[in-house]
């Protein structure tokens, strides 16, 4: 009787201790994974050599609902999709500044740009871009328009743009702007004229 109880005690104690250590291990692993994901998200564009090149950005302003053309210098990679991504990251960089007139989510980033044929770009953004984007018809339209027209201004072959969130299609950006469609640069061009 005593022996059986002692064995049972030992087994239960071992199980409890084992589970405790396993739970602590899982907790540390989740924290490590989250930190790693956050660091990956903040990773900079691949380093490239060469002189900074002027790129054209269309910058939105919420206060007066306009898009303004401006130029900044960015070191561009030689590969086309990487170059397009660097241009869009320069655009996002403007919006992420504390003085931005069109702020977007703090961790917003462009994960990748893919080309379908020669004239269609698929821009894959991270979840923070959509999740923390200010909600509103005009605010969202300004963001979409600035992405499309900036890409077209720096890579004139791109005539159609599709925006993905974390590799997936989403119905709207933040409740308003349609993200299920391909945006035609010529169509957006008319909007940009209205917004300038």
């Amino acid at each position, binding site marked *: *009787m*005593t022996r059986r*109880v*002692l064995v*049972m*005690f030992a087994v*239960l*104690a071992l199980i*409890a*201790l084992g*589970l*405790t250590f396993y*739970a*602590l291990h899982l*907790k540390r692993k989740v924290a490590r994974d989250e930190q790693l994901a956050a660091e990956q998200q903040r990773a900079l564009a691949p380093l490239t050599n060469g002189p900074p090149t002027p790129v054209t950005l269309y910058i939105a302003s*919420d*206060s*007066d*609902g306009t898009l303004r053309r401006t130029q900044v210098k960015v070191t561009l990679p030689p590969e086309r999709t990487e170059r397009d991504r660097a241009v869009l990251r320069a655009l996002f960089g403007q919006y992420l500044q504390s003085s931005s007139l069109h702020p977007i989510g703090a961790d917003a980033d462009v994960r990748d740009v893919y080309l379908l044929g020669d004239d269609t770009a698929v821009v894959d953004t991270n979840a923070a871009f959509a999740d923390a984007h*200010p*909600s*509103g*018809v*005009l*605010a969202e*339209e300004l963001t*979409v328009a600035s992405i499309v027209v900036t890409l077209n201004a720096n890579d004139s072959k791109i005539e159609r743009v599709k925006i993905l969130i974390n590799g997936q299609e989403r*119905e*709207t950006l*933040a*409740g*308003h*702007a*349609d993200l*299920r*469609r391909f*945006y*035609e640069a010529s*169509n*957006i061009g*008319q*909007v940009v004229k*209205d*917004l300038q």
Partner: protein
Amino acid sequence: MPLSGRRSRLAMAITAGLALLFAALLTRQAPVQAQSPGQNQLTVYSPRTSYSVPLLDVNGQPYAGLVELLEPLGSVDARVDGKKYKLHFTPPDGYPLEVQFTGGKDKGKVRGNGYKLPANFVLQNGRGYVPLSVTSDLISKLLATVTELHLASRRLFIGNVQLRYTLELHKDNPSRLLLGFLSPVNPSIATEPGRVRLTFRREPIVSSGPENVPYSDPLISGVSFSEHDGLAELDVTGTAPLMANFADGGKTIIVTGAPAPAPVAQEAPPPPPAPANPQNPSPQPRQPAAPRFLVLIDPAHGGSDIGAAITSSLPEKDVVLALARRLQHDLANRGIAAGLLRNSDVAITLDQRATWTNAARPALYIALHAANTGQGVHVFTAMLPAANVSPQGFLPWDIAQAAFLDLSGSVAGSVAAELESRKLPNATLLAPLRPMNNIAAPAIAVEIAPPAGDVDEIASPAYQEQVAQSIAAGVAAVRAKLPEVRP
């Protein structure tokens, strides 16, 4: 045997202790939980603003965050040093006042004097929380003003902000109940057969006498006041369908009998699964009917989809619903029948909005939105690639609106002209906005932003009325261009 009995009891006690330790380790990360929906916020009314503070449940007791509670009332600087929490609160035109507490302790200091909480101070993720019951006294000490906490209904009044109402029953035919307020109010209104419920979220409405007032009237049976979950409600009951209208710039709400066979109700869209408009009857078997002119108003968002957070306590879905009701009223004043796609806080998908609208065959579809960025009013028509689509032929779902873009543009221009004539900042634009692309009728979307930077003004009855009148006048001006449609 006695020794072995003691050993076995000891073994079982140690095993149970280890199991408890294990369970405690697993649950250690979640001692504080958000309360159930509807119970999770405190509404604070101050002379400057009204706002909501999310509440946390700590061992069954509601707690409020100190920063969230004090930030709208002045500037706040909070710091955490280990378990010590120090907060400097500076009221407008005042000097910094210090609040100190220690996590897990019930004693602290407010303005240099000892202060005892009814339960321990909670520190979580660098934020400090105090029991809800102490918020009134704490603010009173910091602002040196009177405060009143309605603990059960989660409402806190700072200063003498309480807004009382008067009741006047006019026994006309039909009877009219006039609810009078000292300043304009903008409640959400829900109607059910024989009942109108006015829900006040932002106004510090309090009871001005008995909470239940019965009437011996053939139409109006009585009024009752209640408050709960951070809001107040006035419930008017009657013996027949009732309706509520605003008057005197929002200072008076008139409750009276609803017209019996309302044309709008007959012409409303097919019923959604949610109770969109309780006044709308169930669909009747369709009979050939004469062409008619129906405007369908779509207050965007609803339910769990709040849209933009105009302020922490004012979601877009509430702003646009109030505007939609005003627009419906103003269109009716111009002899234009209008229906609402939703007349309560229900969620409707974008595809459902388009499907119901197209099934109702309106002469015009108006989507209403609100935002806290920019200023003035933006009138949108659909941004669509050029397409050769005829309204008479088959309409592809994704570009159904393409066949109506010219008429949509005419309406947008007319509304913009009316906004301009009222000196409201405005612009007309194309927008990639769903479900406008899918609407097989002339369609515009209107997004209102604060008139001049003051975000709270977006919900003011005066501003909303100006916008609603502009849209109604703009629609009336182009009515002749828009085709009447056979239902």
